């Protein structure tokens, strides 16, 4: 029976063990962390600078000054940390009758739910990245879906702060139609488009799209297109060049349905796995954490808060490409 204040420490220790067990599993299933920069930050207001190639490396005459790289060419955004959380309530009845199985379920379920929400909120940034300036996130608040250049996350014409050059990260097929359904042709065209990216200073800065991100609905098609030894859907004996080029297919089940219940199962994305975290930012001031109950209420429930601080925004968009798959 864990009903006395003196039992509090023992029960808290037990709950923490369950919390940690569940958190390990939940973190493993957190797909968003593969693409979003989820590093920890101390800043409440996080300032991000998107540079378009301001680095300098030029030939210099003897005795002359080296050219200066400046941040003036970039676009900046600020993102403020928000707090999210909930409480786990361990009732006196649970403790009185040693219902530890129920306590364990409550803890584990809440941990999973916290990471579910974080993962879905990150998927939603991609799924809402095709129109408008903002959307209502799964917490009911307005979330911006534009990149620092003021253009929606997936666009055929991203701008920069240096000149009127534009670049795309909206997937098209070889006929030039934007938002094509997942197909070999569209993957090949997206990879080509990304490789020929030039920064506003005219330097070639190829983006290597080596990862395909699909919904559960598109999983089978994606694997056939990429992993078939021959060209998928054809009777010819050509080798499938994509087999070695797209090194990873990630099935992200949260892409099938957006949190506003829209069917987004046809949406698909590609990314440069080495640089995608420069494009998708979600810094945490605190990852989900369960704190000990600090007071015992009149009800004699012991309430354990689980909370987290994080924010989500899009950075330089060139390393993440998307299609709604409707065309």
């Amino acid at each position, binding site marked *: 029976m864990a009903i006395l204040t003196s039992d509090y420490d023992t029960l808290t220790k037990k709950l923490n063990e369950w919390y940690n067990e569940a958190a390990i599993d939940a973190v493993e299933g957190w797909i968003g962390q593969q693409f979003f920069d989820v590093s920890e930050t101390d800043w409440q207001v996080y300032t991000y600078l998107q540079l378009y190639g301001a680095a300098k490396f030029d030939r210099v005459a003897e005795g002359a000054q080296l050219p200066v790289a400046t941040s003036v060419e970039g*676009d*900046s*955004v*600020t*993102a*403020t940390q928000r707090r999210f959380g909930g409480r786990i309530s361990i009732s006196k009845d649970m403790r009185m009758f040693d219902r530890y199985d129920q306590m364990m379920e409550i803890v584990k379920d809440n941990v999973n739910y916290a990471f579910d929400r974080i993962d879905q909120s990150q998927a939603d940034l991609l799924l809402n990245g*095709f*129109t*408008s*300036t903002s959307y209502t996130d799964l917490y009911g608040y307005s*979330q*911006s879906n*534009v990149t*620092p*250049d*003021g*253009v*929606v996350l997936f*666009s*055929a*014409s991203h*701008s920069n*702060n240096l000149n*009127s050059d*534009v670049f795309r990260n909206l997937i098209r097929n070889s006929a030039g139609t934007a938002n094509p359904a997942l197909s070999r042709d569209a993957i090949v065209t997206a990879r080509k488009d990304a490789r020929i990216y030039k920064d506003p200073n005219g330097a070639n800065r190829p983006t290597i799209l080596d990862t395909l991100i699909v919904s559960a609905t598109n999983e089978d098609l994606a694997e056939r297109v990429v992993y078939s030894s021959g060209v998928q859907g054809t009777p010819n004996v050509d080798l499938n060049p994509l087999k070695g080029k797209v090194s990873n297919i990630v099935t992200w089940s949260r892409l099938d349905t957006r949190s506003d219940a829209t069917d987004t199962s046809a949406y698909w994305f590609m990314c440069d796995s080495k640089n995608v975290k420069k494009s998708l930012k979600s810094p945490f001031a605190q990852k989900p954490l369960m704190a000990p109950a600090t007071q015992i209420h009149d009800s004699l429930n012991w309430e354990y808060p689980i909370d987290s601080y994080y*924010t989500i*925004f899009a950075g330089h968009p060139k390393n993440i490409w998307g299609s709604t798959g409707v065309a």
Partner: protein
Amino acid sequence: MSLNWERLVGQGRARDTGIAWQPEEWELVLAIAKKNSITVSLAAEFVRKGATLENFAEVEPPKPREVIEKEAKEAGVSFAPEAPTAVLEKEIIRKTKKVKKSK
């Protein structure tokens, strides 16, 4: 998340503070800039006034910033240099109406 909207609007890269161009509007801005060999910021002013590729020649050209600032001063608007052009235009209209009413 907060962007540098003032600069984006000034450069024609956003419709207004806190309002991004919709994809088709933004494509139109770029197309008008390219077709007429004008800057993106000027093309954006035209699109804000309702210009399309077809009616571009019929739309009254946007006033340069210097002209608007002069008109604002004449209308008695007190403003800081960073006041957005659209805000100045609204203030000029408001002040002018006020003067007419009081007469």
